[in-house]
């Protein structure tokens, strides 16, 4: 059982996960940030590997990806850095990025490298369900690396059921169809959506991402799901002076 299952099976309080881009703000900050997040009480982390054309991302993460690339970050270098990961961090870690980078690295090689580094799961938003199921699923399962799928308020029930079947850690909910970095809208239609999902009694726990940026949005998310994922707000924070040493300060703005 990997660290993600352990976490979802044992912890009762709302979970907080934080995303940041590998190689940003500095090429060597990847593990320092991971360690800082664990110390600040974050439950699990998502490390983005940068891509030149991040279609699902808003300006903040576009910018961190571009900077990371300019700093020289590559998937190869990231796995090199992650050799030290499990000496420094014990909470679950996911990698998040776009499929072309994975394809060029080689999907089997990528799964193997994740397993060796102690990475528990991956989020590749543009890897379609059909291709995952037909071509890559076994490779992920063989290495005990969870593939996490996204759903939005427009995802049909039939498709959600299928995603639930293919998932083995958690499902990533978007509060509305949007790129990253927009603020969570908590209106009646999204409440109806959360209620609909709760009624479906899915096998996998859910987490809300995209747009979580303060207490309010975090608490709202935790009302309906197991917790929330913060991305752009943290990446923006990383741009402030001495940010890495002030991570607890940031975490306190989200969860008391």
């Amino acid at each position, binding site marked *: 059982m990997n660290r993600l299952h352990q976490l979802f099976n044992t912890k009762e309080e709302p979970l907080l996960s934080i995303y940041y881009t590998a190689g940003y703000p500095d090429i060597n900050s990847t593990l320092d940030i991971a360690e800082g997040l664990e110390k600040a009480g974050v439950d699990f982390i998502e490390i983005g590997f940068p891509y030149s054309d991040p279609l699902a991302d808003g300006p903040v993460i576009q910018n961190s990806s571009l900077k990371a690339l300019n700093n020289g970050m590559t998937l190869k270098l990231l796995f090199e850095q992650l050799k030290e990961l499990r000496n420094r961090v014990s909470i679950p870690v996911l990698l998040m990025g776009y499929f072309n980078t994975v394809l060029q690295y080689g999907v089997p090689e990528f799964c193997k490298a994740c397993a060796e580094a102690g990475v528990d799961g991956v989020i590749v938003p543009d890897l379609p369900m059909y291709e995952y199921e037909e071509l890559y699923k076994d490779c992920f399962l063989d290495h005990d690396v969870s593939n996490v799928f996204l759903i*939005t308020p427009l995802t049909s029930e039939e498709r959600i059921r299928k995603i639930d079947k293919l998932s083995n850690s958690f499902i990533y909910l978007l509060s509305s169809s949007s790129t990253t970095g927009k603020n969570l809208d908590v209106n009646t239609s999204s409440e109806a959506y959360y209620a609909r999902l709760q009624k479906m009694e899915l096998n996998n726990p859910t987490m809300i991402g995209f747009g979580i940026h303060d207490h309010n949005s975090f608490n709202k998310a935790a009302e309906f799901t197991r917790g929330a994922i913060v991305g752009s707000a943290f990446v923006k924070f990383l741009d402030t002076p001495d940010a890495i040493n002030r991570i607890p300060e940031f975490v306190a703005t989200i969860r008391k």
Partner: protein
Amino acid sequence: MKYPDNIRDLVLLNPDYIGFIFYDKSKRFVAEIDEQTIKDIPSCIKKTGVFVDENASVILDYIKKYHLQAVQLHGSETSDTCLKIAESGVEVIKAFGVDEAFDFNQLLPYLDSVNYFLFDTKTKAHGGSGLTFNWQVLEKYTFSKPYFLSGGLGLENLDKVLAINDDRLYAVDLNSCFESEPAKKDIEKLKLAINKLRPILKETESMSYNVNEKGYYGDFGGAYIPEMLYPNVEHLRKEYLKIIYEPKFQEEFNQLLKDYVGRPSPLFLAERLSAKYGAKIYLKREDLNHTGAHKINNTIGQILLAERLGKKRIIAETGAGQHGVATATVCALKGLECVVYMGEIDIERQAPNVARMKMMGATVVPAISGSKTLKDATNEAMRDWINNPEDTHYIIGSVVGPHPYPDMVARFQSIISEETKWQLKEKTGSEYPDYVLACVGGGSNAIGMFYNFLDDEHVKLIAVEAAGLGVDSGESAATTALGREGVLHGSRSILMQTEDGQVTEPYSISAGLDYPGIGPQHAHLFKTKRAQYVSITDQESLDAGLLLAQTEGIIPAIESAHALAYLEKMKFKGNETVVVCLSGRGDKDLATYMKYFNL
């Protein structure tokens, strides 16, 4: 087949052939079916005329009138008759009624004059009896020519067809057992049959140059999109064929192409250019379309589609501005809101097109991310669509993007080669040129120019990419020369990228060719070698533009000038026929021409 609605339902099943009986003693005789209904069948489905002992000249008239691509001859036509018909360029399928006593040696004279045989149950009434024959007699058939199997094929005996282990079995001809009444097909029953036959249909599918039902062209294509785009793309995928083959849609589309765009675009014999190169060079004048390029064929199609999908807001990306202008144009025509994303750098270098879009009421949004050119404009348009999933339709400007876009845009652009075929036939007596040339950015004018020739393997297809300052100069957009397989903008194709999979910045003097990928169908045509991919530098294209201006009085777009420039590198034997797609006119490029030639 003779009922229009039934024909259109059948088209959606995407069979390889559809047959029409022109034999007046048959209960399935089509009589005077509407010409347009037959012509509107996409040409990837071969329209087949079925005749019994008809006069060759009458058959040739029917071929012309209905744009038939194949004929089935069910009488006692001689091999000479078959040959005469084959020479007009259609496929000839010669049918024989087979029984235990059938002498296969009588096929010998036909081996050189027909494409396929068809083995049917022997009856007095030339087939259509609903009875099968004993297929074991096929063991006596020793020639290598592939054949169609016909006669009494129904759901209950298809299992036995699957068991026939013969590479020469090329097609099965389903008829009377799948009818709800004579000449009317039972579509649900046919679906079951197609599913049943799937194991043997696979093989021909992999040879096809068109998209399969999963959205792939061989290894390329698919829909690599985040979940936020899935509902929109899936909706489109489910609806696009149904919508575009609705009679009302076709009627409006054809009308607009004619009265608004000015189609058919002329096929012009460029005599002075022909004399220079020693070939018969025809120019397909897409530059004469309204708005000055082929792009409008696609935007007219997509705006009609968007209306039927109930969308109120249109977004588009543009590089040179031609697609942006074509989109702004159709939005003005239909009164829909229009937002065009354009790289900040392209906005500077294509100012007149920016002004055109604005004048027609479009909002032009600069793409300031990444490299600030076409690739980034496309990213921005996709992000807009993610954030506005319900009221917005995204009109992609080339044969790129997630399935079904490449196929949909190809179908709208296929009008280019459809017209070329009949125009060439009128002018030369044959619808087949020796060569077809087109430039490739994303590849929409090239696919449009190739589309109806894809299965005519004797027609050589040449796709011209932009080499920029030279393929090895580091400043180039020659995707097939410099790229590898990868995923960009929702499809798997060939892509210019770093070892790490970061998309690299292409360069070409022509903004319309300045794209790091090509459409997935092109990647497939490249990999299967069905088309040849070559490249032309900035300088060569500018020289070709000047040459066309001075020999024919036509100023081409620099994109199109890339295709023209390749003529210089070809060696023609005799008087070969060449069609070059003149995808756009050069008005937008005048500043560049002025600079290079000190005009």
